[in-house]
């Protein structure tokens, strides 16, 4: 069975004698989002900017999938690049969380689509501080 992977413009395609299998970019982005959220220390993914926020609004109106916010994918013939924008939990080590996110995103996309992710850029835009009592702080006792 001869297989040939070609760029379908906005999707990854695998062509064989039985027919073509196409996986939309949005699906790859969704998988990246799922893999990112699974890592402890990631609070949430956030939109990339005004453009994506407006697009997200339009998607909400039309009922299209809005859960790929904060994830941007660039899918080529054999490889893909992923850009993530996220908020991390207070107290975590960004390098360690980022490494775990990268591993998970790469592994999950390869397992589910066969696509090889060669670049994962991560931008941590903010920290999430849960509203909590300060433990053991002398000020609380005064």
């Amino acid at each position: 069975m001869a297989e040939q992977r070609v760029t379908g413009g906005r999707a990854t395609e695998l062509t064989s004698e039985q027919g073509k299998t196409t996986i939309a970019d949005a699906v790859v982005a969704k998988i990246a989002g799922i893999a990112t959220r699974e890592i402890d220390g990631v609070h949430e993914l956030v939109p990339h900017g005004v453009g994506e926020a407006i697009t997200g609004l339009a998607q909400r109106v039309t009922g299209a999938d809005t859960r790929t916010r904060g994830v941007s994918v660039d899918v080529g013939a054999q490889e893909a690049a992923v850009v993530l924008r996220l908020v991390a939990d207070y107290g975590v080590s960004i390098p360690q969380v980022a490494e775990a996110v990268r591993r998970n995103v790469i592994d999950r996309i390869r397992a589910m689509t066969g696509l090889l992710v060669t670049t994962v850029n991560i931008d941590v835009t903010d920290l999430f501080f849960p509203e909590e009592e300060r433990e053991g702080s002398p000020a609380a006792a005064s």
Partner: protein
Amino acid sequence: MSTATLADDLALARAVAAAVSAVPGVAALSRGHSTGAATYGPGDTIHGVMVRRQGATLQCGIYLIARYPDASDLLALAVRVRQVACQTIDTCANERLQRVDVAIDGLVTGEEMP
């Protein structure tokens, strides 16, 4: 030359749609994301399945939304969907599908609706 009618193709599409929807990992057939992702016929439209004839050959395009984590390997899902489509056509019409294109347009997680 094929003597199949539009109604026949619609029935085939309906049968394929039903069979594919039952495959574990398929959340739903997709509506409107891809152009031509439907079979039109008298009184009905089957979204997500496109049955077409080119001369004597029968071809099919299937556009679906997968469900995670039921579908943990999308390429394997596509293979399974292809098998099911071929079996359905073989059973219903005693015809052979020459080509089945599968497009996975979306992915939903456990609690989402497609």
